[in-house]
């Protein structure tokens, strides 16, 4: 599905990603884990074409991605960004409509119905301005908006950030449920424990490089990881 080969990029001459290899197969939840500032969001920006590569390649769905957000969306690689980035001045309904601006327009009405079935809370708020939603509702909207583009791969950047523990639980359940419907998901998180519980495989990123990868079970059992991330 997604094949990332030795990508390097950064901001204005400062290299942040220093040769990353990674893949997501169809049907998988792949967790990309790491502390704050290691380059997870930078990786997502590179995958979705917001940031151009200095070297390496991104093969998605059998083809090399052209390196623009438009090309990524057209190909079905949909990135739900850190901090949600919903349209605060527009209604919930309009936010969802714009989710299918570039892709999935023909299925708009059907997909909106599907999103409302997945997130009944959003249905009660169709005309509410998105900026006035609670943090949890905004995250649901951001994911729902991503679903509107009929993704082939969904990248979620820290979906649990800033949510109450109960909502975090709900968020991980949701990720699992979406995946259960056949959607491959790349889950980018700092929440190592809960991510490993639902992921099939995981990558640990440190300082712009993959330092560990394997099945979720392998990674969970790794003594080094326990020491570094779980404080055990």
């Amino acid at each position, binding site marked *: 599905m997604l094949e990332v080969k030795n990508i390097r990029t950064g901001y204005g001459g400062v290299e942040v990603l220093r040769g990353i290899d990674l893949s997501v197969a169809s049907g998988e939840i792949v967790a990309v884990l790491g502390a704050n500032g290691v380059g997870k969001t930078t990786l997502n920006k590179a995958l979705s074409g917001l940031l151009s590569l200095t070297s390496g390649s991104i093969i998605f769905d059998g083809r090399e991605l052209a390196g623009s957000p438009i090309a990524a969306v057209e190909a079905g690689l949909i990135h739900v960004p850190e901090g949600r980035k919903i349209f605060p001045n*527009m209604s919930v309904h309009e936010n969802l409509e714009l989710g299918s*601006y570039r892709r999935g327009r023909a299925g708009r009405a059907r997909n909106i119905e599907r999103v409302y079935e997945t997130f009944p809370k959003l249905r009660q708020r169709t005309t509410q301005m998105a900026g006035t939603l609670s943090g949890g509702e905004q995250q649901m909207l951001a994911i729902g908006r991503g679903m509107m583009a009929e993704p082939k791969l969904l990248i979620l950047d820290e979906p649990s950030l800033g949510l109450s523990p109960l909502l975090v639980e709900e968020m991980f359940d949701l990720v699992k449920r979406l995946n259960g419907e056949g959607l491959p998901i790349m889950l980018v998180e700092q929440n190592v424990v809960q991510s490993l519980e639902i992921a099939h495989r995981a990558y640990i990123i440190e300082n712009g490089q993959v330092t560990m990868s394997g099945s979720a079970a392998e990674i969970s059992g790794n003594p080094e990881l326990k020491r570094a991330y779980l404080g055990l």
Partner: protein
Amino acid sequence: MYSPTILIEAMINGLLTGAIYALIALGLTLVYGVLHIINFAHGAILASAMFAVWGLNVLAGIDPYLSILVVTPIFFGLGYGVQRLVIGPAAKGDDGNILLITLGISIFIENALLAGFGSDTRSISSDFSFSVIEAGPFLISSPRLVGFAGSLVVTALLWFIMSRTDAGKAIRAVAKEKLGASLMGIDVGHVYALTFGLGCAALAVAAGLLMPTFYVNPRVGGAFVNIAFTIVVLGGMGSIPGAMIGGLLIGLVESLSGLLLGESLGQIGIFVIFILVLLLKPTGLFGAKA
């Protein structure tokens, strides 16, 4: 004391003129709302649109109202192209640069018009320019009535585009959340150009509606833009309904203070409103919080 008839007539005339002011303010507020800059070339673009309407009339005998159908798509295209090919690439993402570039464009246009037409004032006059409609005791200028109707139609059309079409929704999305919009596959550069094009198109319509009763020279835009800027501040920077309501209000104030204080002091009322808004409600009537 003035008779009620005179007062009411002044109010009607003020509202009719105000609608055209609103149309000029519309483009300014739209561009501000999305690109977050004051387009300093707004007045110069209005002047060139007025010259275009005048030129079509003098050279080809085309009625100014009819010329709207020709001039509007041309100015939309010019606005789109200038943003896409000049302002966008030169700005390199810095809003401060955009400001300076529009200032440069305005100087360029003004001088080009001066070189081409000199500083003479020109106008189109026909019988229609002076025709009036009698509504009970009131005499209402027909061209101003047409201008009023035209402005309302354009505002309604723009409102429809912004609230009902994907293009309009994309414009609103980019106005507040560029990154989120990019991730939906919205082409931000295209949206900027579209917005600039719509602003210029509104000016082209305004030019066609103005020319039957107004004159044109290369500097004519300045006076209108000062008023339009007051309207944008009064209505709320970036708000379309704010521009319309603000325009009508300013037209009313200008007309009444002109009547009560004398023609030469008519603008004082506008100036006072401008200061009051800045003091009491800096976000304007319909403005969002910063």
